[in-house]
């Protein structure tokens, strides 16, 4: 047993060192910084809860939270639903080229978010972009998505969806392929319709994977930074100012690392609360095979 433990520690050590250096230490250090007035260039003093008091009274921080929540609402259900639909179309090779599309759909996920942001800003560019020119050809009055405060977040969400759907699709395809055929055969014997097969066999068997994707998608959505930074810089009129981008601006443009750390901790707590709610609610709909 002792020998076994030694091996366990040996294998865990590299990760533990990495986690301590790159996650746990910065995490606690940022917690300490959140109580200081530290600037990007050093200096500052302990300000107690001053940063937290400031950000809770700051309308820009509240606006960023609302924007991020709106983005999450647009992106999370959209990604899961579209990915599930595509996975169901592709997993049984129901048409020629299904294997090819399985590879293609994953490709955007490999691209860097910065490149995706730039490409999509060009696509949406009024007068020059592909979408704008195609709309002109079809005589459709298409809005200038990224420079109009009403549509800008939709544009960022569209780019996110395009990028992430492949990732979730791949997970769902793997999940669908692991559902035993006997369950469908049994359902067929019982006279289940296609929809009933989905609701009573596919969905329960896939629920743990959907749950995983839901948690990951929510965390990623609340962390959104790259696309809002590249596509809109948080504009127009702060309509796409996500909390991640505001934290970046506070730390690296306004040079207030202490305040940015407090903003990060508030965001972390929101993400943990949401994740906690998901975990509390999973008993009602998530099925684990070994339970």
């Amino acid at each position, binding site marked *: 047993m002792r020998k076994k433990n030694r091996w366990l520690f040996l294998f865990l050590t590299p990760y533990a060192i990495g986690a301590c250096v790159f996650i746990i230490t910065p*995490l606690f250090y940022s917690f300490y910084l959140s109580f200081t007035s530290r600037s990007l260039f050093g200096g500052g003093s302990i300000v107690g809860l001053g940063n937290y008091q400031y950000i809770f009274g700051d309308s820009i921080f509240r606006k960023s939270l609302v924007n991020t929540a709106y983005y999450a609402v647009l992106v999370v259900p959209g990604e899961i639903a579209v990915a599930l639909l595509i996975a169901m179309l592709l997993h049984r090779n129901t048409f020629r080229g299904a294997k090819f599309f399985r590879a293609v759909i994953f490709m955007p996920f490999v691209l860097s978010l910065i490149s995706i942001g730039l490409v999509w800003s060009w696509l949406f560019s009024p007068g020059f972009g592909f979408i704008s020119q195609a709309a002109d050809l079809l005589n459709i009055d298409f809005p200038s998505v990224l420079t109009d405060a009403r549509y800008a977040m939709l544009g960022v969400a569209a780019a996110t969806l395009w990028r992430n759907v492949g990732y979730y699709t791949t997970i769902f395809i793997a999940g669908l392929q692991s559902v035993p055929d006997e369950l469908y055969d049994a359902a067929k014997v019982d006279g289940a319709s296609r929809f009933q097969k989905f609701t009573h066999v596919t969905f329960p068997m896939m629920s743990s994977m959907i749950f995983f994707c839901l948690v990951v998608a929510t965390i990623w959505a609340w962390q959104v930074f790259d696309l809002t930074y590249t596509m809109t810089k948080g504009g127009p009129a702060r309509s796409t100012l996500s909390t991640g981008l505001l934290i970046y601006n506070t730390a690296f443009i306004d040079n207030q*690392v202490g305040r940015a750390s407090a903003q990060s901790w508030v965001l972390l707590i929101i993400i943990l609360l949401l994740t906690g709610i998901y975990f509390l609610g999973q008993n009602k709909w998530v099925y684990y095979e070994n339970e």
Partner: protein
Amino acid sequence: MKKRITALFLAMVLAGAMAAAAGCGGSGTQEQTTSGQKEDARGTNAPQTEGQQAEQQTAEQQAAGQEEGELSGTIRFAIYTDTARDLVAQKQAELYMEKHPGVTVEIVSVPFANYYTQLGQGLAAGSAWDVFMINGASFAELGKTGQLMDLTDEIAARGMDLNDYVIDPMNSSYEGRTYVLPYELNTSAILYNKDMFDAAGAEYPSPDWTWEDFREIAGKLTDPSRGEFGCYLRTAQPDLVSFVYQAGGALYSDDLKTITFSTPEVKKALTYTTELVTKYGYAPSPEQLPANISPFMTNKIGMASAMCFEVLAVEAAEFNWGIAPWPKDVNQGGSYWTQGMAVYDGTKNKELALDYIFFLAGEEAQNVMAEAGGAAPSLLSVACGDKYLDADAPDGMEYFVNEFIEGRAVAEPFTSKWSAISGAATSVVQTELSLVRTGDETLDDAIVKMEADAQKLLDEIQ
């Protein structure tokens, strides 16, 4: 249950990484480092490791039989990435190294968006660049931290007269001591598309044109059916300060402690620029602009402001263009700012870093900058000399410099809250003015809000 606990732990780690990001700085930034060293024996300029560079340097020093007291070693000079700046910095480094064979100057070129992030990380780690460019907004924050070398005595010892340069003491001095030397002078003027002027039968701007002339010409150049606009007006620098100055006002009190957005002069300037968008339609509203493209380069904008360092990029335009002075109201002229240089107080080679920064401020290095034709040198005698305004310079380049000679330039009001007040896309001013230009807010309401929010930010400094 074990699975659930594992999943919860993984989720917490993922979420925790976000909070960690602010504490340990950004990532994924780009940095290009080029050493100004001559070609090696293989005739290549392959990047070298620090070890290789040190070995080569030692060998060179020995070979040259270096005299005692001669400067030697390696220093890094950091600049914002820009075609012209990269070229200028490289040439300046080569010039210096020719005179000091034992010295290697590495040019660190970092995109502006990441520049101060990396500087902050370097300072925190105690390994900041030896010499680096610094603007007024960052000096306002960094100047008081004690991490910049005090250059006051050295300026006196070397007999340097700062009056020969353009640099605002507010962007270079703290409590009577000087920490920043002048490097670049960034002035503004108006670019105009000659092809659009010709097509509309409009006369090119005259040196003494007025706001009325500007508006009239913009009207002639505007053609909604072709998506063409007479002018493009930025919601912030350099347009905001320039138009307010032309109207005879200022955005801040002289001591930069009070916001004065609600004065009649500021209101007049904002009304004039807003109406060009909302009332006349001569300038595009925010939703009519392409994202991530310079509006003037689209060949659909008749006139737009520019800083002198932006001119080299415009030379790639496939249409004919020229440079005009700002139009006149009560005053004529526009906003400027300077880019200074500082030495990191923790540099391991203080003597060399000091010598290099004074070299960069000297006439020889400033001439190199003048020849490139981008940013103007901050040494006024060079900025006004033949090298900067030679025959190859674009038509009207002299207007960038004339503002100074004729005392018609107004300094961008840099404070440590400059980005939050007007500099960044999500700043108070840019946000409110975009809402005004899209018709979602009245100018009067916006002025009240801007003044209150900006003053609140300014009060944080005091």
